[in-house]
């Protein structure tokens, strides 16, 4: 299992797309720093007559620009390294000499999960730390209000999101061809984003059927829930939890406990499904 994990970790690092992600990350961090710079300059120029508003703007930056796009970058990286992790080895035939060695098929799946999990979690931690550090360097007002403990809690959820996406993607890779899995995973990811917005708009408008649809899509695709839980862990004392809600009324949109428990079960659930799908799969 460790051998598989190490090999798939290294292989992911060698992908050309990984260089693309690294370049994107760099550009993104530079842009993020630049935005911070201008915001801080303009806030200090206006003076501090409206502190609440200032904090709100700054929080928006952190939550929206910073963490929202970072979580998308992490999702992007996770998806591109993992959609073909199993299917492409089946398609190329590389797998023939691997799973005929003394290794259980379940260890093969778990090894893949472990190797790519370490990679995407490391990337998530790196991005998270970079965003928070940039905010701290520019001394955004929000940084002063952050509790270290809640930041750590936020990081936990920030790293949980790629692990959930990975579980889905590995299941898809064990079940489908690489191309189909790409479409499968990306659609489900987008479904989650839309579902999250639907649920929140629904709760603002008190529209129960919107909320229900949102919840159903979140069950299939709980990534947005994890993201919102991450934000509410960090920013609970401020109340801004969704970029799309900033302009209208602010609602406390932290997911329900049941939903959280569900998301925790989602990961092992999908990994088990992947193993079951793969265990008796004919490979020819």
């Amino acid at each position, binding site marked *: 299992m460790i051998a598989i994990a190490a090999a798939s970790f290294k292989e992911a690092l060698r992908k050309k797309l990984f260089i693309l992600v690294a370049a994107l990350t760099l550009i993104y961090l530079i842009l993020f720093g630049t935005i911070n710079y201008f915001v801080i300059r303009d806030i200090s120029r206006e003076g501090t007559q409206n502190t609440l508003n200032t904090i709100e703007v700054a929080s928006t930056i952190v939550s929206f620009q910073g963490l929202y796009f970072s979580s998308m970058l992490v999702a992007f990286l996770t998806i591109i390294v993992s959609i073909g992790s199993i299917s492409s080895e089946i398609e190329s035939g590389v797998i023939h000499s691997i*799973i005929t060695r*003394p290794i259980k098929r379940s260890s093969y799946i778990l090894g893949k999960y472990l190797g790519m999990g370490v990679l995407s979690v490391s990337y998530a931690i790196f991005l998270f730390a970079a965003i928070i550090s940039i905010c701290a360097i520019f001394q955004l007002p929000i940084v002063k209000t952050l509790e270290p403990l809640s930041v750590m809690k936020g990081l936990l959820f920030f790293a949980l999101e790629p692990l959930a996406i990975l579980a889905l993607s590995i299941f898809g890779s064990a079940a489908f061809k690489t191309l189909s899995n790409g479409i499968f995973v990306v659609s489900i990811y987008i479904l989650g984003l839309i579902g999250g917005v639907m649920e929140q708009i629904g709760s603002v408008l008190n529209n129960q059927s919107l909320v229900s649809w949102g919840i159903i899509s979140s069950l299939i695709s709980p990534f947005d829930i994890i993201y919102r839980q991450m934000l509410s862990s960090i920013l609970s004392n401020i109340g801004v939890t969704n970029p799309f809600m900033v302009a209208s009324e602010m609602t406390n949109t932290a997911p329900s406990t049941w939903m959280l428990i569900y998301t925790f079960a989602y990961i092992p659930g999908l990994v088990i499904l992947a193993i079951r799908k793969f265990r008796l799969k004919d490979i020819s």
Partner: protein
Amino acid sequence: MVIETENLTKYYGNKIGCRDITISVGKGEIFGFLGPNGAGKSTFIKMLVGLLFPTSGKAFVLGKPVGDVDVRKKIGYLPENFKYQDWMTGEDLLSFHASLYKLDKKNAAAKMEEVLDIVKLKGHERYRIGTYSKGMQQRIGLACALLPDPDLLFLDEPTSALDPVGRKEVRDIMTKLRSMGKTVLLNSHLLSEVEIVCDSAVIINKGSVIKRGKMEDILESKLILEIHAEDLNSEVLNKLRDFDPGLTYSNNMINMEIKDKDATHHIASIIINGGGKLFELSPRRVSLENVFINLVEGGEQR
């Protein structure tokens, strides 16, 4: 028995892969598994190494039912397509497979040296497999299969990409393994090689066994006689037809099949006593290729 199968059958949907294959292969044998394209040879091997799951029937390797993970520590397999991670170097690949085989570190390094030497890839181990030629890729694949010092080796067309020297080397590897009491299941289209190296074989066609036995039984004791003789009268020819009614005669060349080599000198004296001039008489064994083609074509006609 090292390999034992009982009515092993695989259907792909409702398409036949192979059907009711019952074989047993003893320790220290090189066993040929032969048949035309699409006969089901690779299907059969893939079931024995655990890539495919049988539709019905049973199979045991090294005394354990197929699918037993631990027993694979002593099994080597070279797949038909020999595709490896092209981003790895030869060395990376070997150490990856060494860890899949759970060899301990020290043992692994020595083993890696050894197999690199066997497949003649010393000096190439630092290059990426993507830069290897087809034959080199097949060699590194064989090296991986040899890593665990296997008691049982499955080779699915192991020489398909190799040059004549490489083919000879693989033959030598197989005979050496046999002398160490190891067992090899060989699937190959190069029948002249199979004939040299295999102790027994089965021939399958369209998924079913059509011939099986020790190599000499498959080849039978038949001989083919090629005779160059002149001034043959019909009396002589009729006498020769008693040996083989199907003999052919043209341009002073006779081509006939005889049951055993004792007939050879009878034939020579018939020709000479009948006034014929005998220039050349050469007996040769029926080749596996002859047997194979007759069987497979015979099967087509039926």
